[in-house]
């Protein structure tokens, strides 16, 4: 089997929007090729992490090998490489695409193409992948196969589509034949020095970092000394294999094949996605194209509610980092929140996932400050500072200019919501770039927009402006100068650093008022009156007051009530412990995220 010629290998991935049926289709492919029997089939095998299942998204790419006897009588090795389905992981997506020669484009017949699908599709086209368009869910009564076909035609210039129902299996075997016939075989050089692309990696507590690789040239076997092109670090290969879908170790992996590689690598930083693995004793001269270090775009502070949990938080972050090279963190101190970490993420979803895992898997109770982008601050001292935390912004008199990251934002929406969405984008300082129609009723809008505006609840607002129909994709384009100011929040007369934000001057007054109002809503009444102020520099621009608590009493407490009522007050006290005490004021966790929830229109 090792000697199977590359002509009988097909490497492909599936491009689909969340819920459009990627996992279900993958399941059918595995079933039809007898890779996994129906009985063994855990629903949607590819999404194994609990969180992924809950959110219906695939976070980490994986690969599964199938053997398929085609109509021509030959047995083909089909490698299905899974891709993450979210904008935050677009770099990972691009590496998965680079490992393939073909892609199944899955479009939900009831929904049409979504923005992210399109973004991934364009990436796939850039990688010269052969696209096999599939219209899924044709079994549903609401399926609109013609409209979906028209959209695909608009985008690909071909209406040659495969209608399937991944759920019932209808049409799926035709797809397998299409993979064999249409996706080109790998074109690597069997005899050249070994080169492989890392498209995914994860940490295994017994074996260290495990790299999922696509061998491009040559071959690799157990005992080989390998080297990482970007770092030059060398390791000895202890295991190679493939997943069918359980891991099966093999003697070697050769040109064109997809599999995993273990080499006593301590953590996933040694196996950066996109890096090229070469043979240390017979090194290839050039790396495979496209490597770049994952760069976090979104930052926030993570603080334990209980300061004693700081070491636990560090340990938890270190453990998560073992498996997630794109997560970065460093300790920081906040006057209000004590010791914590400033953490960098690829995007909002990535941030959400990490927070949720910290709280769920590591049982930490956290305060999360509002996410921030990296600002470039040009100072009077002729230096350029990268500021990822609003409280670190230098005093106004030292600032010459502030530049902020801009993104190209693509939104696909049914055309009746275009007006509302354009209004939203304009409110968010977006510059209109383009609008085109994918079909007579679906438009694609392109805006040039500050990334910080997207972090502020943009996605939820987009969804509510379009009754949930619009989809979003964005990519970083440039840094641009903007008239930004720092907005401070004072509670009980004291500035709370963790509540500071950087905001456009034109929006600051309005935003300050809304934020003060929002904080008044989320901070519970306490024994003392609590003044809340929003200020730019020394100028107070908004003021609200949480009035003192009026009533919190148990009218009756007799012999039968004592235990119960004591427990009630104990519980109340527990609730307080989940809040952060700043001065004499108890501030609930959500207050620190209130910055995000400031309404645009009231």
């Amino acid at each position: 089997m090792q000697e199977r010629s590359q002509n009988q290998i097909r490497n492909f991935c599936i491009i689909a929007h969340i819920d459009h049926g990627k996992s279900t289709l993958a399941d059918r492919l595995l079933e039809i090729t007898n890779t996994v029997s129906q009985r063994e089939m855990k629903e949607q095998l590819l999404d194994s992490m609990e969180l992924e299942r809950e959110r219906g998204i695939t976070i980490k790419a994986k690969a599964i090998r199938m053997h398929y006897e085609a109509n021509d009588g030959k047995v083909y090795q089909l490698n299905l490489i899974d891709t993450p389905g979210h904008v935050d992981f677009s770099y990972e997506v691009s590496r998965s695409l680079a490992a393939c020669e073909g892609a199944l484009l899955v479009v939900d017949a009831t929904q049409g193409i979504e923005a992210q699908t399109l973004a991934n599709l364009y990436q796939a086209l850039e990688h010269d992948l052969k696209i096999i368009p599939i219209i899924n869910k044709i079994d549903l009564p609401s399926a609109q196969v013609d409209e979906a076909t028209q959209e695909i035609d608009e985008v690909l210039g071909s209406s040659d589509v495969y209608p399937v129902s991944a759920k019932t299996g209808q049409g799926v075997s035709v797809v397998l034949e299409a993979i064999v016939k249409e996706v080109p075989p790998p074109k690597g050089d069997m005899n050249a020095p070994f080169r492989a692309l890392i498209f995914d990696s994860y940490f295994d507590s017994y074996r260290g970092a495990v790299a999922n690789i696509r061998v491009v040239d040559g071959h690799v076997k157990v005992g080989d000394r390998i080297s990482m092109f970007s770092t030059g670090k060398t390791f000895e290969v202890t295991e190679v294999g493939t997943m069918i879908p359980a891991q099966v170790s093999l003697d070697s992996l050769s040109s064109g094949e997809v599999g995993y590689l273990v080499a006593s690598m301590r953590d996933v930083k040694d196996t950066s996605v996109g890096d090229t693995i070469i043979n240390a004793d017979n090194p290839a001269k050039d790396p495979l194209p496209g490597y770049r270090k994952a760069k976090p775009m979104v930052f926030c502070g993570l603080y334990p509610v209980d300061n004693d949990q700081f070491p636990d938080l560090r340990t938890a972050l270190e453990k998560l980092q073992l498996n997630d090279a794109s997560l970065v963190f460093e300790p920081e101190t906040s006057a209000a929140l004590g010791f914590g970490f400033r953490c960098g993420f690829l995007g909002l979803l990535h941030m959400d996932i990490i927070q949720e895992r910290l709280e769920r898997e590591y049982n930490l109770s956290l305060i999360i400050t509002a996410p921030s982008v990296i600002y470039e601050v040009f100072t009077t001292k002729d230096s350029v500072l990268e500021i990822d935390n609003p409280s670190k912004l230098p005093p106004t008199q030292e600032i010459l200019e502030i530049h902020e990251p801009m993104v190209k934002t693509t939104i696909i929406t049914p055309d009746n919501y275009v007006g509302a969405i354009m209004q939203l984008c304009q409110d968010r300082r977006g510059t209109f770039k383009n609008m085109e129609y994918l079909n007579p009723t679906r438009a694609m809008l392109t805006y040039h927009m500050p990334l910080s505006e997207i972090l502020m609840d943009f996605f939820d607002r987009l969804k509510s402006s379009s009754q949930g129909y619009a989809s979003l994709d964005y990519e970083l384009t440039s840094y641009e100068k903007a008239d930004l100011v720092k907005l401070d929040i004072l509670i009980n007369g004291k500035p709370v650093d963790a509540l500071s934000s950087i905001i456009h001057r034109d929006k600051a007054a309005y935003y300050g008022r809304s934020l003060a109002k929002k904080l008044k809503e989320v901070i519970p009444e306490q024994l003392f009156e609590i003044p809340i102020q929003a200020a730019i520099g020394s100028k107070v621009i908004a003021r609200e007051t949480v009035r003192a608590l009026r009533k919190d009493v148990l009218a009756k407490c007799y012999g039968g009530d004592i235990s119960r009522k004591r427990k009630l007050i104990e519980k109340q006290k527990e609730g307080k412990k989940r809040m952060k005490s700043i001065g004499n004021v108890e501030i609930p966790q959500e207050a620190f995220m209130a910055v995000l929830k400031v309404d645009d229109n009231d």
Partner: protein
Amino acid sequence: MTMIKSGVYVHIPFCLKKCAYCDFLSHRPRSLEVNEYMEALAKEIERFKVEGQTLFIGGGTPSIVPPSLMERLIKKLDKQYGPFLEATIEVNPGTVDLDYLKMLYDLGIDRLSIGVQSFDDDTLKKMGRIHSSNEAQEAVLKACEVGFTNISIDLIYGYPQTTIKTLEETLKTAISLPISHVSFYGLQLEEGTELMKERPQMLSDKEYVGMYYRGMEVLEASGFMQYEISNFAKPDFECKHNLIYWKNLEYLGLGVGAVSRLGKVRYKNIESVLTYVKSIEDGARTLLVEEQLTAPVILKENIMLGLRLKEGIGPNELGGFSLDDLYPEAVALLSGAGYLEQFNQLGVNRYRLTKKALPVMNSVLSYFF
């Protein structure tokens, strides 16, 4: 047999009709249920040897127990645990006549707690009470007639759709009657009550607290001194039995659902009448351990209960310490903000809640928990 010296509480879990706001353990009895229950109660009484200090027969509505059965109960209690420094029974104005009251008085009951709740007929109707304002007033007068000199009434303020005006009328009537004690309770909306199911529009906190302060004002002006968050008495008419609870002393609870605190353990009796009756017949245990009281728990409870009282807390309740020894920061903060006041009683440094603190007592307490 346990040898204790304590307050004795007896629970009668029966009512003719459940009031809308009530979440106590009570129901309308099935036929013969009262007889069976009283029988079992008599047997439970025999299980304990107690030197009773006070007696409190509460409910439910103890006064729906037929005279003959009530007579047997009281005699039994008296024989087993008496004599008492104070013997109270709760009565519903809709269930007592002159004879019943006379019987109670003659059996040695010296304190009546009458569930009046309001002297406004509209409000009584909303609450689902079975009596009118007139009947309530008559009940007080009749009790006085048969010889009771220690009469307490319960009043509820803050009921949905009531106003400060109707409350003032009720208070005016109350202070005109020959009573010595008022329990003045703010309504608490409890899970599972009829009232909760109605999802009523509750009064605002401001209105609620306004009513509370108004009640304090009127009652104190008429010589009813506030000695606990919700209790007011003419001098020397404080309820001795309830003070046992608030001082976190020992008490024995008899009957279904009754709680006892004996030594460092709090017990709770079986709550179902059927199981209770059967267990008593079988000679099985009915007292179930609810909680072991450790030193820190007792300290918390002493603070929680002691701060309900006008006499507050001092070294006696705090293991020899003063509150500011134990919680210097909280005491400084709360005193500074006018929630806590220090006073001197017989040369001893004590703390109590200020008038401002009473309506927000739980929040104040959380500083000591």
